[in-house]
């Protein structure tokens, strides 16, 4: 490398005129401003109305209040552990290690879909099941499923708009009917989704609920073939319809109490059914169910045999991000997936640094 040294004589010779200097200083300024400007633009500083993960999470807090240490949605929950017994049937669709025959430990969390961690249980509130499959070599498979047959919106903007349209009017304590009507008017896919949802009877409790991935994913096999799939956890516990409103349901935690009682008697089990999509089945629209008669592959059985409070369980420390996937499972083009990952990350980061307020379902309640 040449050992270059500039002498002061050369620097003198090169010194420019005063006018030239101003132009050159200006040029430096413009280039630096342009670089800074690009950075600010990419970070969204020039788009104050763009929906970002932060603004999305702010909306949850605005509507529900900020509850220290809790998830911004599905804040009320209870932790479970168990295992997944793979029967090997999934291996032809996906090279993921979870589908080889064998057993992997599972950590999970049952929840209700509300931004209020102390909300009273009700039969119609969406029920959630988050799962983390601990796979060998540090891989993990996380899923966050809900007991709805389809999702109500196609993308994050729709979810945000629905959240805003359905927020309780302070005067009445209920959503503003005009706002709701306006939303449904501009979102026929949501109206259609609710029709599908209403045609599927809700079960009596967590233990006999079917939980669905809602979003499509792609299974990649050893040859690189990619198959679109959706999956469901179908309970072995028999279906029973929602009981006619009775004294049982007056208890604020009746759904969780029933789950706890059930699990204390015996482990609960679900079959993991993978539905194989055909060409033409939408992978980017979670409001549309796939046609009846699609091939369903039973890839194994989930057993949950231990339950504890969110206050003591590991699941409270886990972000059930549906895009934490092992090799062999990939996201589809469903626009909800990346948005879920982004917003869950925001919620997780915020609650991680907060004091953990006690859960609605306390350790003593779980012991009963």
């Amino acid at each position, binding site marked *: 490398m040449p050992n270059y040294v500039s002498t002061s004589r050369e620097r003198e010779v090169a010194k420019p005129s005063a006018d030239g200097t101003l132009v*050159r200083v200006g*040029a430096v300024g413009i*280039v630096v401003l342009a*670089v800074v400007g690009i*950075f600010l633009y990419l970070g969204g500083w020039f788009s104050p109305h763009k929906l*970002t993960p*932060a603004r999305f999470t702010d909306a949850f807090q605005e509507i529900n209040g900020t509850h220290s240490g809790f998830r911004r949605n599905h804040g009320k929950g209870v932790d479970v552990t168990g295992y997944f017994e793979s029967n090997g049937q999934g291996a032809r669709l996906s090279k993921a290690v979870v589908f080889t025959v064998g057993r992997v430990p599972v950590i999970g969390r049952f929840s209700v879909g509300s931004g209020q961690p102390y909300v009273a249980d009700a039969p119609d509130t969406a029920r959630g099941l988050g799962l983390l499959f601990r796979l060998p070599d*540090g891989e993990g498979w996380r899923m966050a499923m809900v007991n709805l047959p389809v999702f109500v919106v196609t993308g994050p903007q729709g979810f945000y708009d629905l959240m805003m349209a359905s927020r309780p009017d302070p005067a009445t304590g209920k959503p503003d009917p005009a706002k709701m009507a306006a939303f449904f008017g501009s979102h026929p896919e949501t109206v259609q989704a609710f029709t599908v949802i209403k045609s599927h009877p809700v079960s009596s409790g967590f233990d006999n609920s079917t939980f669905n991935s809602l979003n499509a994913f792609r299974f990649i096999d050893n040859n690189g073939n990619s198959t679109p799939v959706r999956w469901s956890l179908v309970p072995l516990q028999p279906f029973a319809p929602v009981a006619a409103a009775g004294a049982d349901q007056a208890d604020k935690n009746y759904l969780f109490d029933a789950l706890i009682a059930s699990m204390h008697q015996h482990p609960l089990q679900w079959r993991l059914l993978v539905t194989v999509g055909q060409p033409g089945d939408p992978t980017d629209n979670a409001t549309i169910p796939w046609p009846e008669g699609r091939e369903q592959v039973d890839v194994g059985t989930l057993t949950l045999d231990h339950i504890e409070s969110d206050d003591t369980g590991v699941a409270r420390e886990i972000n059930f991000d549906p895009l934490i996937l092992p090799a062999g499972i990939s996201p589809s083009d469903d626009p909800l997936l990346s948005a879920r*990952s982004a917003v869950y990350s925001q919620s997780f980061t915020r609650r991680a640094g907060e004091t953990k307020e006690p859960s609605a379902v306390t350790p003593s309640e779980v012991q009963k």
Partner: protein
Amino acid sequence: MRFLHWLMAALVLTMLCIGVAMVASLGDYHSLVSIHRPLGILILLLVVIRFVNRLRSKVPPLPPDFPSKERFVAAASEVLLYSLLFVIPLVGWAMLSAAGYPIVLFGSVHLFPILPHNLMLYAFLRKTHTVLAYLLFFAFVAHFSAVLFHTWVGRDGLFDRMAPWRVRAR
């Protein structure tokens, strides 16, 4: 040496842009994060190689009439930049460990966690990562501005010390 500088300049600039864009995005979040992680580890590897190389190399000296205040600033900014390029990816690795996330680089290639699963630790490291990244951006802008100033206004040939092309001795 110089090759490493220009390669890393391109990578770091890309990282800063990806970092700031991904946290503001819903639809591109996943794909940007998936690039951000392995790129961060690549920068960590490269800065270690570069640092070792730097200690063992003879660098072109500053001009003899270079004011001592400016010498100090040059040395301090070099220390700051090397430090940030080393610490920021480490903090990223540490924060993912503390969050309990698998640290995926690509495919099934994973890093081992370097901290236990602890949410308070994660929250602190996550914030630190952001603060240091903004500091790096600021340091980059200062460095870039100073280089442009020396080159276009000072016209003092300082750029030749790092220029990627061969410099004929003047």
